[in-house]
C-alpha cells in the first residue's frame, strides 16, 4: 500500500465538485504528522488558541478545561515566557456532568486579579470542547466575572471539535482578540493590519509605502504594548485583512464599529505582489509606489537563480506561506517541486491548477492521512521548506521558514531567498 497522494494534474482535474474527501479531517483516522503536531499552544509551533488569546496586551488567560487539555501549556508556557500569564481551572467528572465549574469562574477570576504582583487589565477565559457540548453561555459568565473583578473579561473558545465548522478555533480566537475594541472617532490616517498575532517584519515595504500615501497610523495587535495602545486600534479608518482566518473578526468589527476591510493574500511571486498592491491602491484611491522593493526582489531572485539554477523542493505546511502558492511561485522561478505535504482546501484549487499547468506530476500528499505512516523517502530533494517536510527528507537541506514575526510581500520573498541561501 502507498501513502495517499494525488498528482497536481489529478487534483486540478477533479476540481471543487470532486474534491478529495481524504483532505477532510473527518474522513478517516488522523495521522499525527509533524504538521498536525503544531496545534499546541502556547507551544511547539507558532500561535494556537491559548497563545493567540494572550496577544491582547496586559492580559492573562484562565483555561477552564479537563487536565489533558492544559497539560502542554503548563510545561511550555514557562519556556515561551508565558508562565505569569496562564492560569488553570481544572474540571473534574462532576463538573462535566453538572456544569459546576461555571460557577467557579467568577471566583477564579477574582483570585487571578488579586494574586499577581502586576494586576492584569484583561482576563481571557478559554473554554474547551466539553463546554461546547454542554452549551455553555460563556458571554454571560464573563459579564458576571467582569462585574465582580473590575477588569475586562473576554470569552474565548478552544473548540477543537469545530475545526471543520464555519468558525474553527483559530477563526474564533481572532474575533476574541479584537473583541475589546470600541467605536472611536475615525482617523483617516489609521489602518489596522489584521491577521497575525506577532508583527510583520520591520523592513516590510507595507510600512513605508502606506506612510507615503498618508496612512501614518499603522497598527497591529502584535506591536501593542499596553491595553490603551491596543484600544487605539478602534479609530482605524479601515482594516487590512492579511490572513483569511481573520475574515470573521473583520466582519464583526465592520458590524460593531462600522470599520470596513480589504483583504490581501500573501504571495511570493513578485508579479502577483505588484498586481495586488496596484489593486489595493485602486480600491483606496491612491497609487502605491513599490518600484524600489519590486526591483530589489527581482534582483535578489535573479542573483539566486543565477547561483542556483537547479533546485528540487519538497514543501510542507508548517510555513509562513500557503504551501500551494509558494510551490506555484517556485515552479514559476524555474525550479522543481517534487512533493507537497499539506492538506488542501477548495480555496487552494487556483494555486493547484497553476502547479498542474507547470508541473503536472508534482505529488500532493495529504499530511493527515494514516497512510503517511508508509511514506518512504524517495526521489532527490535538495531543499525542504517547513519543518514537517524535513521529517520526510531528513537528509535534504531544510529551511523551516516558520517564525512568529511574519514575512510579507517583496521583503518576504527576499527573506525566503536569504534563508535558502544560508542552507545551500
Amino acid at each position, binding site marked *: 500500500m502507498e501513502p495517499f497522494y494525488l498528482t497536481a494534474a489529478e487534483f486540478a482535474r477533479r476540481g471543487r465538485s470532486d474534491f478529495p474527501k481524504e483532505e477532510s479531517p473527518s474522513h478517516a483516522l488522523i495521522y499525527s504528522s509533524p504538521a498536525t503536531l503544531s496545534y499546541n499552544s502556547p507551544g511547539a509551533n507558532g500561535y494556537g488558541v491559548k497563545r493567540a488569546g494572550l496577544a491582547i496586551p496586559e492580559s492573562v488567560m484562565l483555561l477552564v478545561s479537563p487536565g489533558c487539555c492544559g497539560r502542554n501549556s503548563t510545561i511550555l508556557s514557562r519556556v515561551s515566557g508565558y508562565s505569569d500569564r496562564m492560569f488553570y481551572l*481544572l474540571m473534574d467528572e462532576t463538573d462535566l456532568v453538572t456544569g459546576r465549574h461555571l460557577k467557579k469562574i467568577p471566583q477564579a477570576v477574582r483570585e487571578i486579579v488579586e494574586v499577581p504582583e502586576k494586576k492584569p487589565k484583561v482576563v481571557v477565559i478559554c473554554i474547551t470542547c466539553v463546554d461546547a457540548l454542554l452549551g455553555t453561555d460563556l458571554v454571560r459568565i464573563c459579564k458576571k466575572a467582569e462585574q465582580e473583578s473590575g477588569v475586562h473579561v473576554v470569552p474565548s473558545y478552544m473548540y477543537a471539535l469545530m475545526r471543520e465548522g464555519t468558525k474553527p478555533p483559530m477563526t474564533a480566537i481572532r474575533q476574541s482578540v479584537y473583541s475589546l475594541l470600541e467605536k472611536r472617532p475615525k482617523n483617516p490616517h489609521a489602518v489596522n493590519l489584521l491577521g497575525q498575532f506577532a508583527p510583520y517584519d520591520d523592513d516590510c515595504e507595507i510600512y513605508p509605502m502606506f506612510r507615503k500615501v498618508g496612512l501614518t497610523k499603522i497598527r497591529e495587535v502584535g506591536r501593542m504594548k499596553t491595553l490603551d495602545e491596543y484600544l487605539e486600534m478602534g479609530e482605524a479608518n479601515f482594516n487590512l485583512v492579511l490572513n483569511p482566518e481573520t475574515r470573521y473578526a473583520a466582519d464583526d468589527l465592520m458590524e460593531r464599529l462600522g470599520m470596513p476591510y480589504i483583504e490581501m493574500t500573501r504571495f511570493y511571486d513578485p508579479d502577483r505582489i505588484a498586481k495586488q498592491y496596484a489593486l489595493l491602491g485602486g480600491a483606496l484611491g491612491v497609487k502605491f509606489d513599490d518600484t524600489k522593493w519590486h526591483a530589489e526582489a527581482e534582483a535578489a531572485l535573479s542573483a539566486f537563480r543565477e547561483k542556483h539554477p537547479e533546485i528540487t523542493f519538497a514543501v510542507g505546511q508548517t510555513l509562513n506561506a500557503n504551501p500551494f502558492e509558494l510551490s506555484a511561485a517556485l515552479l514559476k522561478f524555474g525550479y522543481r517541486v517534487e512533493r507537497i505535504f499539506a492538506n488542501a482546501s477548495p480555496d487552494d484549487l487556483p494555486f493547484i491548477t497553476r502547479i498542474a499547468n507547470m508541473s503536472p506530476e508534482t505529488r500532493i500528499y495529504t499530511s493527515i492521512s494514516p497512510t503517511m505512516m508508509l511514506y518512504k523517502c524517495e526521489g532527490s530533494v535538495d531543499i525542504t521548506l517547513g519543518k514537517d517536510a524535513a521529517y520526510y527528507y531528513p537528509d535534504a537541506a531544510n529551511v523551516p521558514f516558520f517564525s512568529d514575526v511574519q514575512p510579507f510581500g517583496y521583503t518576504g520573498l527576499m527573506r525566503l531567498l536569504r534563508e535558502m541561501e544560508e542552507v545551500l
Partner: protein
Amino acid sequence: MRIVKRVLSTYSADNFGVCSALYELGGLVVMHDASGCNSTYNTHDEPRWYNMDSLVFISGLTEKNAIFGNDDKLISDLVTAAHEFHPRFIAVCGGPLPHIIGTDFRAVAKAVERQCEIPTFGFQTNGMDSYISGAGQALEALVSLMPGEEIDTAGPAKENNSGETALGLFRKNTGPVKENISGETTVDLLRKNTGPAKVNILGVTPLDFSMNGSVEELRRLLERKGFRVGSTWAMGDDLDHLLKSADASVNLVVSAVGLRAAAAMEKRFGIPYVIGLPAGKKVTERIVDELRRKAACDRGHIEYAAEPQNPEQCQNADILIIGEPVQSLAIRETLSVSFGTDHTRIISPMHGLPKEIISLGCEKVELEDKLREACASSKHVIADPLYARLLPNERDKFIFLPHVAYSGRYYENEVPVLIGERLDRWIESAMAGNL
C-alpha cells in the same frame, strides 16, 4: 482555598497512558476525540514518536458526530484502518468528549472485533484520570491475549463463522498452553525447570522510566542476581515475547502501571508478584530476596517491598518525595535503611492510583496551595523540577527528579538512572551534606 492552578502541571492522562503502554507492540491504537487532542501525547509524552513508527491515531471527533453519538463512524474508521495496516490487535480509548457523551468503548471494541476478527480492546478512559490508570488497563488487557484459560474481562467475546472468537484465534496462533499426560500444563513444567528463575518486569513505559537506559539496567541487574528476564511490559520488547511469558516464576511490578497486569497474571496463571523498584542497594537486596522466595514456592500472595507510611512520618517530614509511588517508596526505603532518614513523606498526586498503592501511604494531594504547604514544611523536596515553581524563593530545598509523566519531554535528558546502587550514589550526590 484557592481553586486556580497557577504554576503546576497535570500528569499525563489515562488515554495517553494507553498509547504509551501499547506503543511498541504492533497494535492499532486510537484515541477517540477531536483532532489536536493527540498532539500533547505525541509531542510531550512520547519520546519514541520521531524515531519509532507506531499505529497511534486520533479519530478526529466532530461536533456533529458527538451530538448525534455517531459511533458507526468510529467503528468504520477503525475497521478501514485495520484492513489497511493488519495490526496485531486494536485498542480504542477516549478523552473528555466521548466521556461526556457516554461512548461505550467496550461495545465499540466488540463491533470492531466482530468485523475484523482481530482482538480489540475498548478502554473507558476520560482524559482526566492519570496515565497510571490508562497504562495499567492496557497492560492488563494484554494478559487476556496470552494463551491459556479464558478469563472474564469485557464479557463474552463473539464467535466468528468458524465458531471461534477473535481472541481464541489469536491465542491459538500465539501458541496454546498444552497439557501433558499428567495433567500439567507447559507453564507448570517450565516453572519446574531447575534453571534460573524467570521473572517478568511489569510496568515500564517512558512516562516513568524515560528512555535513559533504566529498563536495560533493570534487566542487567536481575540477570546479575541470577534471574532470567522473561519479558518487559512494555518497553524494549515485542508482543510475541510478552504473550509467551506465562511461564515466569514471578512478576516484578516496578511501577503502579504494572499492578493490574500482575494481578491478572496471578489470577490466570498463578504467577506471584512482588511490588518494588530495585533501586538502592539494600532495597534491591530485599526485592531480590522476595523474588527468590516467591519464585521458589509462594503463590497467590502479594508482597510489598516497602513498609507502609505511617502518619508520624508525614508530620514534620525531613524529606518530601513527590512522584510515582513505587519509585518513591524505593527512595524512601533507601533513605531510611541506608541513610538513616526516617521522616520521609510521599505524595503521589495522580488520579487513578490502585488501592494497593494508596494503602502504602502514598498521599494524594492535588491542590496547589496544599502542595505548597507540604513543600514549605519539609526540609528537602525530591520532585520534578516543575514543583520548584511552588516556592520560587526556596529553590535550594528542591532536589530535581524529572518525571516524563509530569513535565513531559522538557527535562527528558536529565532523568537519572536510579536502578540498583545508582540510587545510593544519586542520593549521596544530590543531597551531599544535607543528610
